[in-house]
């Protein structure tokens, strides 16, 4: 079993096509949509948690790529500007997945980007604006 959080960039010509349901039907994959939108340039962006058997997962990814979908691991999406972070901890209770957590000993805030689902709740509430979105 593989389970990964990935960011899909759909080019304009694919925005109106049923791509994700193919992953379910033909590759037996499960998905959870964390975020989806179409940009003003009519490109689609979708953040998925995708899981399934290893071989099928890889085939599914190959299918997406053959269609022209660009795939990024999610951890590249929300990043922390370490120079700006003051380790206050306002973000900690706002983060729904525990990707931002305070170390009980050092009292520094850790950012576990593998837990981040790119909901971006932290981005606007961070007082020194240390959390940034990068696609």
């Amino acid at each position: 079993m593989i389970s990964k959080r990935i960011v899909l960039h759909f080019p304009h010509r694919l925005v109106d096509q049923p791509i994700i349901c193919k992953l379910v039907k033909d590759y037996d994959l499960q998905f959870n949509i964390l975020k989806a939108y179409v940009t003003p340039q009519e490109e689609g962006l979708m953040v998925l948690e995708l899981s399934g058997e290893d071989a099928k997962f890889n085939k599914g990814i190959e299918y997406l790529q053959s269609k022209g979908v660009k795939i990024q691991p999610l951890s590249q999406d929300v990043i922390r500007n370490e120079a700006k972070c003051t380790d206050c901890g306002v973000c900690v209770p706002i983060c729904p997945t525990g990707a931002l957590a305070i170390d009980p000993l050092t009292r520094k805030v850790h950012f576990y980007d593998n837990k981040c689902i790119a909901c971006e709740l932290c981005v606007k509430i961070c007082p020194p604006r240390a959390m940034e979105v990068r696609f």
Partner: protein
Amino acid sequence: MRTIKEINARIKKGVAVVVTAEEIIDLVQKKGVKKAAQEVDVVTTGTFGPMCSSGAYFNIGHSRPRIKIGGGTCRLNDVPVYTGFAAVDIYLGATAIPDDDPRNKVFPGEFKYGGAHVIQEIVAGKDIRLEATAYGTDCYPRKKLETLVNIKDLNEAVLFNIRNCYQNYNVAVNLSDKIIYTYMGALKPKLGNANYCSAGQLSPLLKDPYYKTIGIGTKIFLGGGIGYVAWQGTQHNPTVKRKDNGIPQAPAGTLAVIGDLKQMRQEFLVGTSMLGYGVTLTVGIGVPIPVLDEEILKYAAAKDEEIYAQVVDYSQAYPQMVPGSLTEVNYAQLKSGKIKVEGKEIPTGNLSSYSKAREIAEELKSWIKKGDFLLTESQAALPGAESGYTFKLLKERPIV
């Protein structure tokens, strides 16, 4: 037991025993108050949190020909500054924002840039755009000035904060069914989170609850440089309820502080944006507490478990000035990451950075140990718990 003069003599000799407000807790637990008080000369404290009543004044020097900005207008990087002083003296407030900022028109506003950010950039040594207009006089004929300014060229650059270093603060929650955006951060509906703002056992005024050593003239760590307590801060309220250990259970004393911005460092003066609320400056302050007797040391050794704060609803009670609180919790509970309010366990977040507070207390300790920082005798006491000095609400009267 010992005087500040004696402590300073020991600092100069390099033999003073200096510990942080965290270290003294362990030391007292191990050795007891009496022994610890005999051994320790100074306890250092620290705090690093948003302090809206911050600002800085500058004397920019006279231009050729001269301009009288006093009574005119002036902006630094588009942020308006106060000009009601003499010709080239201006005051920049931390919460000031550019005229064209959308504010909260598209709610919640982001407030990405304001006075606090300008202060941080000035301290960082960046060039700042100054634009001023004046009405022109015989002695100050110039009507317009546009120039870059840099902190190293200004005559005076002084941080002057009229209310900082709050002695304890509320824990903010939201009882309503929609998210609210406050100066205590974003509060999720139905007790979704609880935000607090204090360094607790490291916080200066919590370690000297009756202001026995901290007073007017006390030399402090301010924004990475040296500053002084100038006065009691605005809204100073020493008469609130206290626990048996003397520690206020609600927002109480405050400090007005002043210091040379030219010595300060941008990592201790951080421009801060509160979504839907505004801009503020996060300030690092450290205060040394001289261990003059056992009683002072006993107070300085108070720990998180013994310091209580009030949990206040910021959806109704706070804005509508409804007195009272939902419950009280101590800082050990707050720092555990969860507190219980009305039977519900809710996650906590801190606006004030405990790790930075620790860094400040450590840095102040190292200054004192190296002999770079001598203690001052306070010149006058702050109004204390028995003074009757209280925080009054506005008495609104209709204008007829």
